[in-house]
C-alpha cells in the first residue's frame, strides 16, 4: 500500500508539469470531439493522431493518447442524448433514455448525469487499475511460453464470443487476422513470408494501416452519400443541474455501473459496449418502476455511461500488466506504446515506473478536466454535429492518409489502408465483425513465437499445453466459450448477444 502511494506521488510529480497538463487537456478535448462525431471512434482517432505524438517524449505521448481514449467515452454520450445517434458504440444504450429525456426538455440533466457518472466511474476505475495491475503483472512473471499461448488463444476465443454475431464468423476473422500477421520476416528463422518481394512488408502489414483501413475507411465507404438527417435537440443550459430526485436516482446506478464496467472491462471482447448493455438490463430489472425505462429514466443514462467509462479503464489492466489487448482500441494503444519504444507486459510497471504511474496520475486529472470542461463546452461540441457529413468525410479521409503515411513515411502503408478499407467494407456487407481480425493481426507474432518456443521446450509434444495447470485452465475456459458460442447455432435460439445487436440497430434508426 505504502509503495503504491509512493509510486502515485511519483506519477503526480510527472504529470504536474505545464507540458504534460497541457497534453492531458488536449487529449481530453480531442477525445471528446472524436466521441461526439459519429463515425470517428476512439480507434480511428488514436490511429490518425498517433503521428502527432512522434515528436513528444514517451510519457507525454501516452498521456495524450490515453486522454483521447477515455475522452471519447465522455463525448459519445452527447450525440446519444441530443440526436439518438451513438457517437461511439459504447453509447448505444444511452440513446434510449437519454434521448427520451432530451425530448422532454431534460437534455441538460441527462448530459450532466452522464458526465458526472463518467467522472466517478473513471476515477474509481483508476483506483482499481492502480491496485490490480501491479500484482497481476507480478503473477504473470511466472508465465512461460505455453501459458502465454493459451492465455492469448483464450483471450481471442473470449473476444470472438463476446463480440456478438456468429462465433464461427468471429473465429474465422481471428484466423484471417493471424494469417495477416504472418506476413513479413519470420523472427525465428529470418525467412520472408508472403511478402512477394515488397521490402516494406518485411516488418509486417502494421497495425495502424490495418486499424485505420478496417475502422476508418470502411466506415466512410459505408456511410458516405447517406442523406444528412440530423435533428440536434438544443439542451437548455439553465436547466443543466439535475433535480434532487434525479440525483438520488442516479447514485445507485453509477455505483453499480462502475463495478460492473470495471470487471467486464478486464474481459476480452467489446467490453465497453457489453458493460452498458448489462448495466441497463440490471437497472431495469431492479427498478421499482421498470416501465419508466425507454421513456426517459435517468437510471438508464447514469448506469450505462458509468459502465462504459469504467470498462474502458478496466481494459487497461490486462494491457499494461500482461501486454494483452482485450479489444481493438487497447490494441491500437499497444501499438502506440510500441512505436514509442515501450512494450507493455509483466516487466513494464517495474521497468517503466515513470510512464506507468504518470499515466495513472494523468487519468485522475484527465477525468476531472473532462468533468469541468465538457459541460460548459457542450454547446461548442454540439455545433460540431451541425457540420454536414459530406464535408466531414473527405476531411476524415485526409487525416487517415496523413496518419497512416506518417507512421513509417511509407506509401505501402497507404496502399494497405486502402485494401483494408475495401476488405472492411465488404466484410460489413457479409455481416462479419472486424475487431477480431485486428486483434489477430497484432497478436500473431507473439502467439506464433510462444507456440514454437513451447513446442521446442516439450520436444514436440502438444501435451505441454494441457499438462501445465495455468495453460490448461485457459484452454478449458476457451473451450467453454466455444461451446457457449455454438449453442445458438445448435438450438437456433438467440442469446443476449442477439439482443445487444438488436438494441444497437434500434438506436441507429431514430
Amino acid at each position, binding site marked *: 500500500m505504502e509503495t503504491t502511494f509512493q509510486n502515485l506521488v511519483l506519477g503526480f510529480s510527472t504529470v504536474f508539469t505545464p507540458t504534460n497538463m497541457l497534453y492531458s487537456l488536449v487529449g481530453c478535448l480531442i477525445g471528446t470531439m472524436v466521441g461526439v462525431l459519429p463515425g470517428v471512434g476512439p480507434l480511428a482517432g488514436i490511429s490518425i493522431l498517433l503521428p502527432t505524438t512522434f515528436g513528444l517524449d514517451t510519457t507525454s505521448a501516452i498521456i495524450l493518447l490515453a486522454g483521447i481514449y477515455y475522452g471519447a467515452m465522455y463525448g459519445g454520450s452527447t450525440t446519444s442524448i441530443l440526436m439518438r445517434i451513438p457517437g461511439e458504440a459504447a453509447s448505444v444504450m444511452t440513446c434510449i433514455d437519454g434521448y427520451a429525456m432530451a425530448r422532454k426538455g431534460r437534455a441538460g440533466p441527462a448530459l450532466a448525469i452522464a458526465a458526472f457518472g463518467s467522472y466517478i466511474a473513471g476515477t474509481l476505475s483508476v483506483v482499481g487499475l492502480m491496485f490490480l495491475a501491479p500484482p497481476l503483472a507480478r503473477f504473470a512473471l511466472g508465465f512461460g511460453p505455453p501459458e502465454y499461448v493459451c492465455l492469448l488463444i483464450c483471450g481471442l476465443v473470449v473476444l470472438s464470443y463476446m463480440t456478438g454475431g456468429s462465433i464461427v464468423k468471429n473465429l474465422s476473422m481471428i484466423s484471417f487476422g493471424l494469417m495477416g500477421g504472418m506476413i513479413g520476416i519470420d523472427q525465428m528463422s529470418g525467412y520472408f513470408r508472403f511478402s512477394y518481394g515488397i521490402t516494406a512488408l518485411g516488418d509486417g502489414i502494421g497495425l495502424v494501416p490495418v486499424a485505420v483501413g478496417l475502422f476508418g475507411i470502411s466506415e*466512410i465507404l459505408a456511410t458516405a452519400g447517406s442523406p444528412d438527417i440530423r435533428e440536434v435537440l438544443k439542451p437548455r443550459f439553465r436547466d443543466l443541474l439535475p433535480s434532487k430526485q434525479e440525483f438520488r436516482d442516479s447514485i445507485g446506478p453509477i455505483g453499480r455501473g462502475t463495478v460492473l464496467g470495471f470487471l467486464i472491462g478486464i474481459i476480452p471482447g467489446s467490453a465497453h459496449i457489453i458493460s452498458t448493455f448489462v448495466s441497463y438490463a440490471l437497472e431495469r430489472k431492479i427498478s421499482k418502476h421498470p416501465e419508466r425505462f425507454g421513456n426517459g429514466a435517468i437510471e438508464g443514462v447514469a448506469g450505462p455511461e458509468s459502465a462504459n467509462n469504467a470498462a474502458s479503464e478496466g481494459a487497461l489492466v490486462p494491457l499494461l500488466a500482461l501486454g494483452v489487448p482485450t479489444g481493438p482500441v487497447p490494441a491500437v494503444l499497444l501499438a502506440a506504446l510500441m512505436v514509442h519504444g515501450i512494450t507493455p507486459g509483466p516487466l513494464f510497471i517495474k521497468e517503466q515506473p515513470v510512464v506507468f504511474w504518470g499515466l495513472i496520475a494523468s487519468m485522475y486529472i484527465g477525468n476531472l478536466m473532462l468533468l469541468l470542461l465538457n459541460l460548459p463546452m457542450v454547446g461548442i461540441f454540439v455545433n460540431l454535429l451541425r457540420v454536414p457529413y459530406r464535408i466531414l468525410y473527405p476531411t476524415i479521409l485526409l487525416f487517415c492518409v*496523413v496518419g497512416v503515411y506518417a507512421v513509417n513515411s511509407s506509401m505501402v502503408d497507404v496502399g494497405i489502408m486502402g485494401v483494408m478499407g475495401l476488405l472492411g467494407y465488404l466484410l460489413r456487407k457479409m455481416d462479419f465483425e472486424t475487431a477480431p481480425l485486428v486483434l489477430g493481426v497484432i497478436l500473431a507474432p507473439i502467439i506464433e513465437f510462444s507456440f514454437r518456443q513451447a513446442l521446442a521446450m516439450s520436444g514436440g509434444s502438444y501435451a505441454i499445453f494441457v499438462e501445465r495447470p495455468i495453460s490448461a485452465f485457459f484452454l478449458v475456459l476457451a473451450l467453454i466459450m466455444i461451446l457457449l458460442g455454438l449453442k445458438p447455432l445448435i438450438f437456433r435460439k438467440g442469446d443476449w448477444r442477439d439482443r445487444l445487436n438488436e438494441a444497437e440497430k434500434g438506436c441507429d434508426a431514430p
Partner: protein
Amino acid sequence: MTIDRVSGAFLVFVGLFVVWERRVLPLGSTSHPGPGYFPLLLAVLLIILGAILIARGKDAKKIRSVSWSEAPHAVAILGCCLFVFLFMEKIGYRLTLLLVLGFLFGVMERIKPWLTLVLTFGFSLGTFWLFDSLLRVPLPRGGWGF
C-alpha cells in the same frame, strides 16, 4: 446464394491459397517448427471454418438482398485512395490532396465552388503546415518541391 456461403467459399479459397504459397517455406518438425508450420495450421483452420460456413449457410441472408446504395460513393473514395497511393510521392502531398479534396467536395458532393475552394486549399495546405512544418512529420514533396 447466401452471404455465408459466399464468404465461406472466400475463406476456403484463402486457406487453399496459403497452403499453396506455403510450400516454399520449410515446415520443420513438431520439436522445431519452421516458418511454414504455423501458417499451415492457420490455413487448415480457415478452410475448416469456411467449410462450416458453407455447410450451415443455407438459411443466411441472400446475397441479392444486400444493399449497395452507397457503392458509387464508395468506388469514388476508393479511387481517391488509389490516386493517393500512386501519385502522392510523385506530385507531392499538397497537390495530391488538392485534387482529391477538390474532386470529393466539388464533383461528388456538389458543394458550392467558393466553399469547395476554401475547404480544399484550407485543408490540404493547412494540414501540411500542421504536420510537416509544425509537428515535423515529413510529408512528400513533388518534383517541383511543392
